[in-house]
């Protein structure tokens, strides 16, 4: 279990995300790094992990490779159940998803996420400064999965006191029972994984709390890159770097084409890598 010397920021996110997932639980997997992390978990400590994808696949073995879309053909082969979007979200709204695993562009200290727009809401809603893709299924997962795991690249502007638009509700304003009172289900954000560390949400205040900083970071450096005041767990510690084997699995077995995990050293054209010839 030698520690990797050349892992990337995305790779440590993937490893951290995989470790948060528990064996034999149902995880509703959003697009992007959550797919890579779920596959790594399934191939390591959580072979009984049951992935659900919003386009309708329940429990696929994912043995034909990494899906590059949550509606990818690769999510359906060998699945236990295949429906459409309504079926997947109804199942989730019912309570079958232990975890929801989503990424977002902006996050606040209560784990609310923005993936809709950068700009002035509501006044500038129809003329956003930057138009992001929109919720997709993220706000539904945030509303109905029992616990959510969030991935957000760490950046002072992206870890912000006030979101420009709340796409996916987290702990809302952090007040006791806020989610229940709003009609939401589930316990809300459970872990957040950034490019700098792993966070939970403190029980009482529901505020984001640093529990592990990644190698090369300190409590101070993480706080310095965060646009709000972080809580810090009493036993906050450095997260172990990915092992060489974990990095090898990501690069060679799971995402050999760099669909979501970009290669650090040599410049690779992502689009060429995603084409069919390389599959």
């Amino acid at each position, binding site marked *: 279990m030698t520690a990797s010397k050349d892992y990337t920021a995305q790779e440590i996110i993937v490893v951290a995300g995989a470790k948060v997932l528990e064996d034999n639980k149902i995880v509703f997997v959003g*697009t*992007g790094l959550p797919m890579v992390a779920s596959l790594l978990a399934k191939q390591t400590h959580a072979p009984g992990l049951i992935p659900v994808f919003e*386009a*309708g696949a329940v429990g696929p073995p994912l043995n*034909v*490779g990494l899906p*590059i*879309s*949550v*509606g*990818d*053909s*690769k999510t*359906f*082969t060998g699945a236990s159940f*295949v*429906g*459409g*979007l*309504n079926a997947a*979200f109804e199942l989730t*709204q019912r309570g079958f998803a232990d975890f929801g695993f989503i990424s977002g562009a902006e996050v606040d200290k209560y784990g609310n996420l923005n993936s*809709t727009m950068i700009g002035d*809401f*509501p006044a500038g*809603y*129809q*003329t*956003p400064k*930057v*138009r*992001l*893709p*929109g*919720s*997709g*299924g*993220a*706000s*539904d997962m*945030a*509303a*109905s999965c029992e616990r959510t795991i969030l991935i957000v690249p760490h950046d002072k502007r992206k870890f912000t006191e006030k979101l420009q*638009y*709340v*796409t*996916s*509700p987290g702990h809302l304003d952090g007040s006791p029972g806020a989610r*229940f*009172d*709003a*009609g*939401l289900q589930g316990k809300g954000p459970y872990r957040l994984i950034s490019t700098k560390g792993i966070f939970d949400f403190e029980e009482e205040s529901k505020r984001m709390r640093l529990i592990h900083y990644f190698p090369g970071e300190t409590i101070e450096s993480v706080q310095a890159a965060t646009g709000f005041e972080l809580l810090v767990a009493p036993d906050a510690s450095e997260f172990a770097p990915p092992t060489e084997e974990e990095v090898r699995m990501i690069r060679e077995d799971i995402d050999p084409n760099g*669909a979501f995990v970009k290669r650090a050293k040599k410049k690779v054209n992502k*689009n*060429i890598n*995603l*084409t*069919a*010839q390389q599959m």
Partner: protein
Amino acid sequence: MYWTGLSPDEAREALVNKDKSMKDKRMTLKEAVSQFIKDGDNVGVGGFVNIRQPIAITHEMVRHGFKDLTLSWQSAGMAPDYLAGAMMLNPDHFSIKRIELAYWAHEAFGLSPMFRFLAERGMLEIEDWSNYNMSARFKAGSMGLPFIPTRGPLGGDIPSSCRTKIIDCPFTGRPIALLPASNPDVAIIHVQVADQYGNCIIRGTDATCAEIAMASAHTIVTCEQLVSHELITQTPKDVGIPFVAVDAVVEVPFGAYPGACRRHYYFNGDHISAFHAGATEMCKGGAPDTLKTYYDEYIYNTKTFEDFIAKFPVKKLIADQKAESFNCERLA
């Protein structure tokens, strides 16, 4: 409250006097598009992101030209990209007035430069929902209901940017969202298999195609493979969309390409990027030349979708088919 497609009562009325008989609905794509889509329509778009999107239909729509369309979908990629790109080049020929959506981008293939271009310049009305919201809105429409309850949009800003009404549940007292039904004027759907009456088999994700088709006043279906009614009714539980909901059936192999279609072909990411290049230039303030060249070569100067597909190297098409056959191995 206004309805952007048909109101629930109008949607009902649209079916009452319609000929719903089991008749031959085969026609050309050109006939289908000109007969069933008109300016100002709310068009429900099938598929999911770049999976089984009705690409061939959007090409024909671009050639035809339409004004002031409302487009409705959950998550889409190339289908609205093609329509939006046409609007970027010439809004007098093709224009989108409004979109109702959850997501417009390409997952692993990045953002949509067309969406950024139109949205950031305020060129279309946007109504944001979630994937479940839009799916449930089509479902309500397909059920003949004016609304359907969901938890999805509670607690964030989505209720402030759309027509959801949040009420206190009369049974539990807790808040619950009511989403207004979506009943588009016309649905555009691509499937793997159909018979001449419009019974459709869908492989892989059903997406929200059945709901959109049932909710809409009219439905245009393209299919990879047209088969006999006798074959399709040997396995009636495979039928995802019944003929009663379909008005036009067109056999169009590769009809969702360069997106993917289960059992037929995987994504052509190269082409998606090539198509995006011109729009990205315009997004950065550049000239429309690259995008215009793309549209001229691939859409305006082709008469049919077969001509579009014929522009791809045979080796590439076969490679994309082989990639998909690895995804779901089976005997021919």
